[in-house]
C-alpha cells in the first residue's frame, strides 16, 4: 500500500491521466499493427478469417507480391503521384502564402476562404472532380473545346494516362491550402527588421527572398514537405472513389491495391503484406520528421 502511494506521489500520477488514451491506442492501433504483420505471414481466407487455424506460410505473400506486376506498378504510381502532387502544391501554396502575406484590404478574409478545399470530406472532393473530368458531362472538356485545345471529348477517367493526371489534379486542389497556411505561418515568424535592414543595404525583392525568406523558412519548408509526403503517400479515399485503381490498374496506389486484395478479392494476407510495405516506407520517412520535431520536445 505504501509503495503504491509512493509511486503515485508525484510525477507518476501523470500516468493516471495518460493511460486510458494510451491503452485505447494500444488496443485499437498497436495490436492491429502487430496483427497485420502476423497476418502477412499467414494464409488467411474468408473461411479462417474470424477464427480457426491460420497456416503460417513464411515469406510466400511477400514473394508473390513482388512478382506481381500490379504491385510493382502501384509502388511506381504512388511515388509518381506523391512527387507530382508535392511539387505543384508546394509551388502554388508558397506563391499564394507570399501573395496573401501582403497587407491589402481583404487578404486575410480571402485566405481564410481558400482553406475550404482542405476541409471538405475527400469522398466529396473525389465526386466533384469525377464530375468535372466527366467525358460528356464534364465542364473541363467543354472549356477545352471552346478554347480549341481539343477537337473531341477526352475520356479522362477511362484512359490510363489521363486518369492519373485527373487524380493528381484533384489531390493538388486539396493540398494547396495545407501548404499555403503552413508557409504563411512560417512567414509571420520572420522578423520584419531583417527586411528593413536589407533594404537599407540596397537588397532588391528577389535578393531578399533568396537571402532572408528561404533560409529562415527552412524548418517550415522541411516539415511541410515531409508531412505532405506522408499524407499524400497514404492517399486512399480520393483514388478509390475517383477511379478505384482503374482503368486497367493504371491508377492503383499501394493503399487502394491493398484494399482491393483484402476486401474485393478476399486475399487478406496479401493485402496485409502490401499494407506493410506501404507502412514501412512511411515509417522511414516519418523518422526524418520525428527527428526534426522531437528535438524541441524532450
Amino acid at each position, binding site marked *: 500500500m505504501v509503495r503504491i502511494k509512493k509511486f503515485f506521489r508525484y510525477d507518476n500520477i501523470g500516468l493516471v491521466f*495518460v493511460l486510458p488514451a494510451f491503452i485505447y491506442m494500444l488496443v485499437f492501433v498497436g495490436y492491429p*499493427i502487430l496483427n497485420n504483420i502476423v497476418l502477412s505471414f499467414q494464409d488467411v481466407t474468408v473461411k479462417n478469417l474470424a477464427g480457426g487455424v491460420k497456416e503460417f506460410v513464411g515469406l510466400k505473400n511477400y514473394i508473390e507480391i513482388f512478382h506481381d506486376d500490379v504491385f510493382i506498378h502501384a509502388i511506381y504510381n504512388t511515388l509518381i503521384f506523391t512527387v507530382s502532387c508535392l511539387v505543384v502544391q508546394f509551388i502554388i501554396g508558397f506563391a499564394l502564402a507570399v501573395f496573401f502575406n501582403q497587407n491589402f484590404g481583404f487578404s486575410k478574409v480571402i485566405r481564410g476562404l481558400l482553406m475550404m478545399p482542405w476541409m471538405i470530406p475527400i469522398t466529396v472532393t473525389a465526386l466533384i472532380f469525377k464530375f468535372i473530368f466527366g467525358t460528356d458531362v464534364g*465542364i473541363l472538356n467543354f472549356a477545352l473545346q471552346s478554347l480549341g485545345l481539343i477537337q473531341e471529348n477526352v475520356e479522362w477517367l477511362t484512359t490510363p494516362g489521363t486518369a492519373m493526371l485527373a487524380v493528381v489534379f484533384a489531390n493538388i486542389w486539396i493540398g494547396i491550402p495545407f501548404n499555403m497556411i503552413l508557409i504563411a505561418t512560417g512567414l509571420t515568424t520572420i522578423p520584419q527588421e531583417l527586411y528593413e535592414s536589407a533594404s537599407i543595404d540596397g537588397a532588391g525583392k528577389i535578393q531578399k527572398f533568396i537571402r532572408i525568406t528561404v533560409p529562415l523558412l527552412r524548418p517550415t519548408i522541411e516539415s511541410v514537405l515531409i508531412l505532405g509526403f506522408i499524407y499524400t503517400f497514404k492517399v486512399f479515399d480520393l483514388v478509390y472513389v475517383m477511379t478505384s485503381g482503374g482503368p486497367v490498374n493504371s491508377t492503383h496506389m499501394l493503399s487502394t491495391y491493398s484494399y482491393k486484395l483484402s476486401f474485393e478479392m478476399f486475399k487478406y494476407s496479401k493485402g496485409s503484406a502490401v499494407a506493410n510495405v506501404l507502412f514501412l516506407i512511411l515509417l522511414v520517412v516519418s523518422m526524418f520528421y520525428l527527428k526534426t520535431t522531437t528535438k524541441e520536445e524532450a
Partner: protein
Amino acid sequence: MGDEKIIHGKKNIILNIAAIGVLVALLFPLYWIVVTSLKTEQEIFRIPPTLFPEMINLKSYAAQLDSGDFNMFRSFANSMIIAMGSMILAVVLAVPASYGIAKYKFKGRRIMLLGFMVTQMLPVSVLLTPMFIMFRNIHAYNTPFAAILADATIGIPFSVLILKNYFASIPKELEEAAYIDGCNRFTAFIKVLIPIAKPGVIVCAIFSFLYAWGDLAYGMTFIIDQQKRPITAGIFNFMGQYGTKWSYLTAFAVVTIIPVALIFIFMQKYIISGMTSGAVKG
C-alpha cells in the same frame, strides 16, 4: 514579412482584384457542385453548360425524403452519430492524456509521446484487416460502434499533440493556487486547467468530428448495411449503382458539405490554429 504595412490606394485595388481571381479559380469546383445540385438532369447535360440553373430545382433533395436504399438524410444521421460518438470518445480520452504528458515527467513519457506521433502517420490500410477481424469478434461489426471506435484512433493522437502545447503553456502558479484553495490534482484539472485550455479543447473536438465525418475507409469496411452506413459510404455506393445520376449525386455531396461549411463559417479561427499548431509543432 510578418507585419508588413497596410497597402492603400491603387495597389490595394489591384491586389484585391487578383485575390478575388484566385478565390474564384480555386473555389469554382465547390460552386459548380452546388449549382449542379439545383439543376434538372437534362440541364446538367446541356451544352453549353449553364453557369446558373434556369430554375431552382429542389427535386434532387426532395426525392431523398422517400425512403429508398439511398436515403441521404438517414445516411446523414448515421454520420452524425458516428462523428459525434467518435468526437466525444476522442476528447474524453485525449484531454486528460495531453495534460498528463504536458505536466508530469513520468517514466515512459517520451515513448508514449512518440507512439501518439507515429499513429498520426499510419495509413488506414495497415489497420483495416486486423480491425475487421477484431470488430467481428467483439460483435461491433456492422454497427456504428465499429466506425466510432476506429475513427477515434485518428482524433486521439491529433488531440493529444495539439492540447499538450496548450497545457504546457499554463503557468504552474495557477495550478498551485488551486491546490491552496483545496483542490486535489483531479479537481484542479477539471475546475481550473480545462477551462483555461478551452480553445484547445474546441480545436480538438472540431478536428475529431471532421476526421470522423470525412472518413470513408472505416465506414464502408466495417458497416455493410446501406441503411447503417455513413454518408460518405452512401455516396460511394450510389456512384457504383447509379453512376451518372449527377443531380442526385451532387445533392448528396452538398448535404455532406453542410456541417463542414457551418463549422468553417463559425469556427474558422480554431481550424487555422489546429492546422498550423498540429502540423508544424507536431
